[in-house]
């Protein structure tokens, strides 16, 4: 399965197994029936703000559209509800709104409507979870004229385009009339309009015959959806999703295990298509904040990193590649090509420990607590493997898989101060869809301000004034300068052995034979990117 994942590069990929003979392709293709997609999780909500999330987004984008989007093949921004956009300055973007688009409730998508929707989603007051992708400033929008909307950040924000590709635009009429329904009944502009959400079972949408994309020549995807209805069925059991495709109950199943993906090669009725994602697996080793002081010793940290067989971990995870000593993938702004993966070298690890020991450091008393959250997929074998690897280099360890209720408080500031002298390595899976190192560096390495309760994330354990000041400069910079500054910072944190990148994850889908599915690094499932194989 690892072989499979390596075949694909960073650019979005499509894979096909064509078995169907297209005998009727000359005729106008009639609408197919229902596309049933087996997804791994029930969405928390179907609000416009949630369109950014992986667990909502696989289907939600069929109903809710964004101003702009990332093309799954080229990775470039493409027009969706905005036909055009331009950057006015570091903190302002101006969008030209597509003409003649109406929401599913029949109301016009005016520039006011778009501005209102954006303001709703990004409002600090609302504090939606999308704030985890908020930039340095507060985002507001205003209609300039009938066809123009201006989006402004209160601070210069190089990633404003990216942020505008996250939020769905939904009908403000709904917000005015029936705000409660905003969260479970999305009213968007997409090729499918929302039908119902059977909690615990599925949510569904039906073909929108008035979709603007049917006529517009710059519409995305195949421009002609083939399915009459969409149904996103929630199946948390991996085996159950696989079985659904096998038995023909669904045409598409998200995220099969690496095993199943490999087995699909021998199956006739379906195949597995894989591609890289922006999701990465990493281990964060406690550092400055309240950490055991032995962990300040660079030799100890390096020894711990050297003890971990990263290739083995990636292999164990399946459908994953070995990261190049940093959290991002090649192509991310700030990616440092000069870095090498942390090498697996138990001998070196033991030498380093010996050296520290001879300086009087109590090496034998080390007990690294390797902790994962039980909601993270495949966390158990990963954590067990890391524990075993540390053991092979004579580093004491304690492995734990905890519930969110136990784990979450421990990775926030209060958690650190409640556990002085901690020796924890948190194992996380996170994603960075922005294509930029900024978010990564900020959330993972910036010193959290214990006194300030606001801000996007405070799970970093690293405090370094020098680094922090350089980071804030880097975040405000644009273009090549931004890339250069980021690269330096990436090198800086790499050398300090703060976070060990364990794997860059590929994601796969089981697809019924005869369907051609195009997806990007975000792995969203949009009916317009599914077509019968020719």
């Amino acid at each position, binding site marked *: 399965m690892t072989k499979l994942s390596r075949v694909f590069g960073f650019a979005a990929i499509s894979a096909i197994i064509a078995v169907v003979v297209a005998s009727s392709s000359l005729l106008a293709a009639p609408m197919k029936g229902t596309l049933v997609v087996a997804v791994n999780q*029930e969405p*928390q*909500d179907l*609000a416009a*703000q949630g369109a950014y999330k992986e667990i909502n987004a696989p289907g939600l984008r069929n109903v809710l559209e964004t101003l702009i989007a990332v093309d799954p093949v080229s990775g470039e921004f493409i027009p969706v509800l905005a036909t055009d956009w331009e950057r006015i300055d570091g903190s302002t973007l101006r969008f030209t709104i597509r003409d003649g688009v109406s929401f599913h409730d029949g109301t016009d998508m005016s520039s006011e409507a778009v501005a209102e929707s954006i303001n709703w989603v990004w*409002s*600090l*007051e*609302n*504090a*939606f*979870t999308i*704030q*985890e992708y908020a930039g340095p400033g507060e985002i507001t929008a205003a209609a300039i004229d009938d066809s123009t909307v201006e989006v402004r950040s209160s601070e210069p924000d190089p990633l404003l385009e990216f942020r505008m590709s996250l939020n769905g635009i939904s009908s403000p009429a709904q917000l005015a009339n029936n*705000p*409660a329904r905003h*969260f*479970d009944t999305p009213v968007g502009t997409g090729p499918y309009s929302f039908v119902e959400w*059977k*909690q*615990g*079972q599925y949510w569904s949408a039906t073909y929108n015959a008035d979709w603007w994309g049917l006529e517009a020549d710059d519409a995305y995807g195949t421009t002609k959806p083939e399915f009459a209805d969409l149904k996103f*069925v*929630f*199946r*948390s*059991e991996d*085996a*159950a999703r696989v*079985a*659904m495709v*096998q*038995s*023909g*109950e669904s045409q598409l199943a998200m995220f099969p295990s690496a095993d199943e993906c490999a087995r699909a090669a021998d199956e006739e009725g379906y195949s597995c298509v894989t591609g890289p994602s922006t999701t990465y697996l990493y281990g964060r080793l406690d550092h400055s904040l309240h950490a055991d002081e032995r962990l300040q010793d660079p030799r100890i940290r390096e020894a711990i990193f050297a003890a971990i067989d990263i290739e083995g971990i990636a292999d164990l995870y399946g459908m994953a590649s070995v990261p190049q000593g940093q959290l991002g993938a090649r192509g991310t702004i700030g990616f440092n090509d000069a870095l090498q993966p942390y090498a697996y070298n138990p001998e070196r690890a033991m030498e380093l420990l010996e050296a520290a020991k001879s300086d009087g450091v109590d090496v034998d008393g080390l007990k690294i607590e390797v902790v994962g959250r039980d*909601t993270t997929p495949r966390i158990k074998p990963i954590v067990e493997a890391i524990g075993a690897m540390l053991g092979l280099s004579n580093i004491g360890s304690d492995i734990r898989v905890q519930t*969110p*209720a136990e*784990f*979450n*408080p421990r*990775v*926030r500031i209060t958690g650190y101060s409640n556990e002085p002298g901690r020796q924890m390595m948190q194992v996380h899976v996170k994603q960075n869809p922005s294509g930029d190192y900024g978010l990564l560096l900020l959330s993972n390495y910036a010193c959290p301000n214990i006194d300030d*309760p*606001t*801000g*996007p*994330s405070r*799970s970093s354990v690293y405090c370094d004034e020098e680094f922090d000041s350089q980071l804030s400069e880097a975040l405000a910079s644009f273009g090549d300068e931004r890339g250069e500054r980021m690269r330096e910072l990436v090198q800086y944190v790499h050398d300090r052995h703060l976070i060990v990148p364990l794997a860059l994850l590929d994601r796969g889908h089981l697809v019924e034979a005869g369907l051609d599915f195009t997806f990007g690094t975000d792995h969203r499932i949009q009916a317009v990117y599914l077509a019968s194989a020719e």
Partner: protein
Amino acid sequence: MAYYLRRAGNSLLLLLLTVSFVFIAGRMIGDPALNMLGPGASEVALEKLRRAAGLNDPIWLQYIRYVGNLLTGDFGVSYRFGYSVLPSEDLDEIGQPVIDIVIERLPATFLLAAVAMGVAVPLGVLMGVVAAAHPRSVADRIVTIIALAGVSVVQFWLGLMLIVFFAVQLGWLPTGGYGGFHHVILPALTLAARPIGRIAQITRSAMLDEMSKPYVVTARAKGVREWQIVFVHALKNAAVPIITMIGDELSALLTGAILVEKIFAWPGIGLLIIDSLTRSDLPLIQASIAVVATLVVVVNLMVDFSYRLVNPRIKLGTRA
């Protein structure tokens, strides 16, 4: 009648204690808002949820408010959309009442329980009767082994095996989900294994007990056919322990279907509970447990009531 009133009173007290326990214990697991929104949530969002859900008040005040609302049938609203509430600060206006969410799930659970028991009760009773009618025969041995296998098998394991075999290999039945009758077959079979075993066991031993009683000899001495003795004379007298077991198993089905519902993605109350636990949606957890506890109480009352129907000797309310 007085007996039922007393029982109902006891049950209400029990329900209140259960709900109180769940409420108080639920408050002990750290910050519900943080569990709900995850570690990446901003303090502003957390604070908003805490304010809207009244989590900043002292616990006794929250408790009094909660119990007060319960008396009016108000179980509160789900935290689920809680973080996204605006313009109103008041969760109640926008959140989904948890009791509605729970009640919406009941039909699926009832259907599953009904089919499972519909299979298990006749089959279990029949197996038990056959075994008891021919003790130590081959049939008895087979019934005993099947019954013991039924109670010894790990439910979720059986479910997985059934999926692999019937849904994947043979493709006869869907792998899960909710819909037509064919959806209910596999989960119901998985669930029925244990009750079949337990009902067969209890029927067998209750029937053996009854078959050794003097009235059976009387019946034989009257020239009654053996099968009539078994089904008419003995089975009616063996009914009390059998009904008790059926009640127990029905309660277990209503509460223990969690695993099977999860494996078969059956949108019943069990799946809801496991989802609400992983989401730390406290009001939803409280309401689910309260509703399930109520169901169990109702089942117990029904069992008590049916004792009286089958056994004229039982005078409810007299204490030995």
